């Protein structure tokens, strides 16, 4: 069993207008184990994406206090690629497009990055796994020879993120707004992909604004995040409660002075 622990995490980004750092996360605490699916819900601008990007190691985010521990070891000093090889995966909201590099060679490079020189993945093993996962995600084989995300529709990009997730099989997946812009078909397919990984060796942190995705990927734990902190933690039923009452209800319950961009 692997663990991912966030301890009193404070994170700032450079605020270009004010020309000084702006604090976004104001003391986040979270403990995840493989075998568990966690969801973080919260209104826009509350720091959900900042949390996932900081865990992954995006250089724009500065940790000013606290720690992130993977299996008890701090990863704050590790570069992005090392964190990934240690078992973290971030399915991004806006994946980059890279011309000239095919999906297939990218996937192989990512898988081989986790293996030793002597133990690089064989062609047959790669293709068998790939075919299996393509079928699972209803993806066209032609996508594999296309350049990485280039000219992909929003839905294709999301599926491609999940394809990478299935191929790489990380210990912990951070899924950032993986449901945004997906039609019902795509949402079901993406959920099927994530659910297929469920088990002792896999944990996920699902970041979402809406409860919609959580009907398909039922979480074990739901956290509500507001104003840079986790304000409430509960089971799957918390998501449903939120849908009924909205964030405004919660804000009032906790007496938070938060501006909600979308009062729902």
């Amino acid at each position: 069993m692997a663990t991912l622990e966030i301890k009193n995490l404070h994170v700032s980004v450079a605020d270009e207008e004010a020309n000084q750092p702006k604090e976004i996360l104001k003391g986040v605490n979270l403990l995840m184990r493989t075998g568990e699916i966690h969801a973080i819900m919260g209104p826009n601008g509350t720091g959900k994406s900042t949390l996932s990007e900081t865990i992954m190691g995006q250089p724009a985010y500065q940790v000013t206090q606290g720690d992130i521990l993977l299996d008890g070891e701090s990863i704050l000093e590790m570069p992005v690629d090392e964190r990934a090889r240690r078992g973290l995966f971030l399915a991004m909201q806006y994946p980059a497009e890279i011309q000239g590099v095919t999906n297939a060679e990218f996937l192989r490079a990512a898988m081989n990055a986790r293996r030793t020189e002597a133990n690089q993945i064989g062609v047959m093993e790669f293709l068998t796994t790939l075919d299996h996962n393509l079928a699972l995600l209803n993806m066209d084989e032609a996508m594999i020879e296309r350049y990485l995300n280039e000219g992909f529709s929003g839905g294709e990009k999301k599926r491609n993120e999940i394809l990478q997730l299935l191929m790489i099989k990380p210990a912990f997946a951070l899924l950032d707004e993986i449901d945004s812009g997906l039609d019902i078909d795509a949402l079901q397919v993406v959920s099927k992909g994530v659910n297929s990984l469920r088990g002792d060796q896999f944990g996920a942190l699902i970041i979402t604004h809406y409860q919609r995705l959580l009907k398909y990927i039922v979480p074990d734990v739901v956290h509500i995040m507001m104003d840079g902190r986790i304000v409430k933690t509960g089971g799957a039923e918390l998501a449903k409660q939120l849908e009924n009452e909205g964030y405004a209800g919660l804000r009032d319950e906790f007496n938070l002075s938060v501006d909600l961009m979308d009062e729902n």
Partner: protein
Amino acid sequence: MEITPEFRSRLITMAKQNKEPDWFIKQRLQALQQVVQLNKPVIQRFKYQNWDLTPLTEFIPLTTAGAFSTDNASPSALNPRLIQFESTTIRVTLPTELLSQGVIVCDLMTALHQYGDLVAKYWGQALKDNSDQLTKYNEALVNNGIFIYVPEEVNSKQVLQLELKSNSKHEQQPFISRVLIVTQANSRLNIMQHQITSGTQVNLANCVVEVVAAENSRVEFTALDEMAAQTLTYLQRQAVVGPNARVNWSIGLFNYGDTVANFNTNLMGQGSSSEAKVVAISAQKQRLGINTGVTNGGQHTEGRIAQRGILLDNSELVFNGIGHILHGASGAKAEQENRVLMMSNQAHGNANPMLLIDENDVVAGHAASVGQVDQQQLYYLMSRGIDEETAKRMVIRGFLGTILSELDNKSVRKQFSETIERKLTNGY
């Protein structure tokens, strides 16, 4: 700069000893005179006036053809090939099939002796508009050359490989080469030129290729330039293209030393076309200035220029794309795209599209960019566990990829990739 009488008389003596035809010697002397009168070609936004590209102290004669073996009798499965070291042709391999169809592949000296009339007819045709010092210098002092002639209706499918190696084991061994290629009507030729330096002494290279493509012929010219860091190089590749003919260039400019390059295609025949793809990498303190032009002279001609450059360290790389549509070339198309990617803050890059249009009924377009490695792309690749160096390499390969993936020949593509990989890793 002046021409000493000794230098001039030595040139005449050696040329006569070599039994060069009179017209050729006369042309040498005329050109020599012009070297001191003319200026270097202009490469916009690239200063190289202080480069000593026209030393008039040493003269190395063309070597006669005695020292090489032809392998004409080989089965046609063998790739046609010509290997030269300095001014000596070491080997010519030409399948009997092509030989029997009248294809000529030989060194310039042999050509002047055996096919003098043909050479005289086409010599300089593609360079008519190039009255500059460096072209004339080449004409005056050429000491290495190749003549290639493909008769009408001959389809030379296999890639003809030209291996040129300059000798820099000693100083004052300038490598001044001229490759003349003539393709007659309805013929087809596929060429790969590979230029390298042997030795580490400081030397000059002035390498000119001219292509004369007759009606409806097709030439695919691929070049891989890898002259050494101590070689100061002037490269010129020019083509004049007849009606409905097509000349395509795929040039990998991976020299390690300072280089100016002047590539141009004249689409004179109606319906002629050309695509010029140039990939270049500059490293360390290297300076590269590259002009790539297509001139639309005939009606319904189509030209496309695509240039991609990578800059490392403190290097400088300037890409000029020059699309020139002449008056009367109605229905012409001129497209160009020039892009450079800076891998270092100390590098200095430029991508300048220039469109000169003297006709109304045309289509022309251009794109240019100078940029750094996209941090978002790097982050994305690294977030999948790929280390920074590999990720950078992938982004670069992606940047060059659109050009590389269009190289038809698989082994050529591999050669390009390996050279790029080497230059990115070592820088020299």
